[in-house]
């Protein structure tokens, strides 16, 4: 096959400049990789690549620093919002965001999340809600849906036993320190375009000192859900979206 010359005219897609060449460890169909790409694009487009500090969580995205080419600090499980607070308070000129899963943010780190929001920390929280502990092999998380099977709810999540799915964004919105709370997804090209705008708005809010912006991504975890990539997208639309409906929840 003749080699095709890459030119400006025939180029239909290019990896964002701030995405490193490292091979991503994310599973096919997982939302993490797409959200990484959007974050990298927005930082580049805002001209903030040397001014941004990302705080990575403990979860599948613990190694986010291997993929997005900016300053990173890797937090203990759940503590990303406290770490980001420390960063932002001594370096207010930096764009600071956390990137956290539902176990990290909604379970072990809910306290730090709520208080950072309540204080109106000028940071952005990117929240990947895949309703499962992806990294540790698919255990139940606070956002696991009723009836959903995980390795620690093998017969399906029972409300009487395990409580109810945690709608974090709905709780965060009532806190006066937040300026923007939105729920997005990256399962279709249209959703991806919308999601990118949401990330941009959140980052701009933070640099304008408006308060904490919270961008939830209702996400897939094909491996944890034991589905194919396309099944996971459909399952998410059918089961996750009714509990975690997409759209802006607060925007001031």
């Amino acid at each position, binding site marked *: 096959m003749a080699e095709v010359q890459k030119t400006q005219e025939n180029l239909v897609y290019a990896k964002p400049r701030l995405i490193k060449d490292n091979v991503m460890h994310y599973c096919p169909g997982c939302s993490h990789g797409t959200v990484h790409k959007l974050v990298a694009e927005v930082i580049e487009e805002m001209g903030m690549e040397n001014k941004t500090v990302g705080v990575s969580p403990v979860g599948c995205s613990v190694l986010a620093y291997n993929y997005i080419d900016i300053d990173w600090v890797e937090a*203990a499980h759940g503590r990303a919002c406290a770490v980001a*607070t420390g960063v932002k308070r001594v370096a207010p000129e930096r764009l600071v965001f956390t990137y956290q899963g539902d176990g990290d943010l909604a379970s072990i780190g809910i306290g730090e999340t709520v208080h950072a929001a309540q204080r109106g920390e000028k940071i952005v929280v990117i929240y990947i809600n895949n309703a499962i502990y992806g990294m540790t092999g698919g255990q139940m998380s606070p956002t696991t849906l009723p009836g959903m099977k995980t390795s620690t709810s093998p017969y399906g999540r029972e409300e009487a036993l395990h409580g109810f799915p945690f709608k974090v964004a709905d709780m965060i919105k009532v806190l006066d320190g937040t300026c923007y709370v939105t729920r997005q997804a990256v399962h279709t090209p249209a959703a991806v375009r919308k999601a990118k705008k949401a990330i941009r708005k959140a980052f701009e809010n933070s640099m304008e000192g408006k308060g904490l912006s919270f961008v939830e991504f209702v996400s897939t975890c094909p491996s944890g859900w034991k589905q194919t990539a396309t099944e996971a997208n459909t399952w998410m639309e059918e089961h996750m979206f009714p509990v975690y409906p997409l759209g802006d929840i607060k925007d001031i």
Partner: protein
Amino acid sequence: MKDVKLMKGNEAIALGAVNAGCDGYFGYPITPQSEIIETLMEMKPWETTGMAVLQAESEIASINMVYGAAAMGKKAMTTSSSPGISLCSEGLSYIAGAELPCVVVNVQRGGPGLGTIQPAQADYAQAVKAPGHGDFNLIVLAPNSVQEMYDHVFLAYELAFKYRNPAMILTDGVIGQMMEKLVVDEAKPRMTEEFIRENYGSWALVGNKGVVTSLELEASRQEKVNERIQAKYKALKENEVRVEMTDCDDAEFVIVAFGSSARIAAKSVEILRAEGIKAGLLRPITLFPFPDKQLQDLAAKGVKGFLVAELNAGQMVKDVRLAVNGARPVEYYGRMGGMIYSPGEIAEALKEKLIEKTK
């Protein structure tokens, strides 16, 4: 210009932080050290030096805020008392693992559990042996006066940055609450961005796409990290031991005590000397690194025995025994749970445990 003030040990920590050029303080109230954050809030250093001061929602949050600020190459600090320090354990481990500098103050109270708000030295072992999970140590300083509370903030930052390791000032409710004269030297300005970039740019997040992490999935590389960290502790032991010896030149019996206990034991030495007993006092100022060599030298010089006085069930005595390594008897005398001994009690204990026994 030197300025003389009268203040509490806790207030001296707060003033020391501002004057040492601290960039960010994060803390949660707990007796007997709440004056530190109260003093800072009253001082409003964000209007003068630009230092940030924040009341966190918990000590877990405090130490993680410290971690974030330290990752920026800044001078970060938190202070607490025993129960709160336990909550800092995980964060301290991450900070040590990521090889970042910071200063943590523990104004100890009696335990276990919620315990008592009275002073104790019951967190010695936690501070010097197991401040958190994994193989790591803190640099541990033990002030015995309001002056040292202030001075040790400077020293703690100096050592923490030199070795890129968290430093703890291990003090207690006695030193934190008492008022004394304090001589205040000229304040250090906060580090400039250029200074941080030039001096700490190799590890701090200065916009060069750096990564601060304690994660290393490859075991062989993690072992290298551990070896590097242990090498720092070895260098600390060789170069940074600080100790104060009083009347040790001709001493036959030496009391070993740190912090508030050392102040009480200094009086015990006077009592014993007045009775014709050649007593001396060795006060470790650094608890990690520990003055092993100074103790060994005293044992070799003919000291007949050591009495370790500490406000706990006998924690430092084990380190003294390790140092002396059976060459001389090492006895323990202590009180617990917030109770304090008098100079006379320590003097009596020395006579009973060392002199009468060895007769």
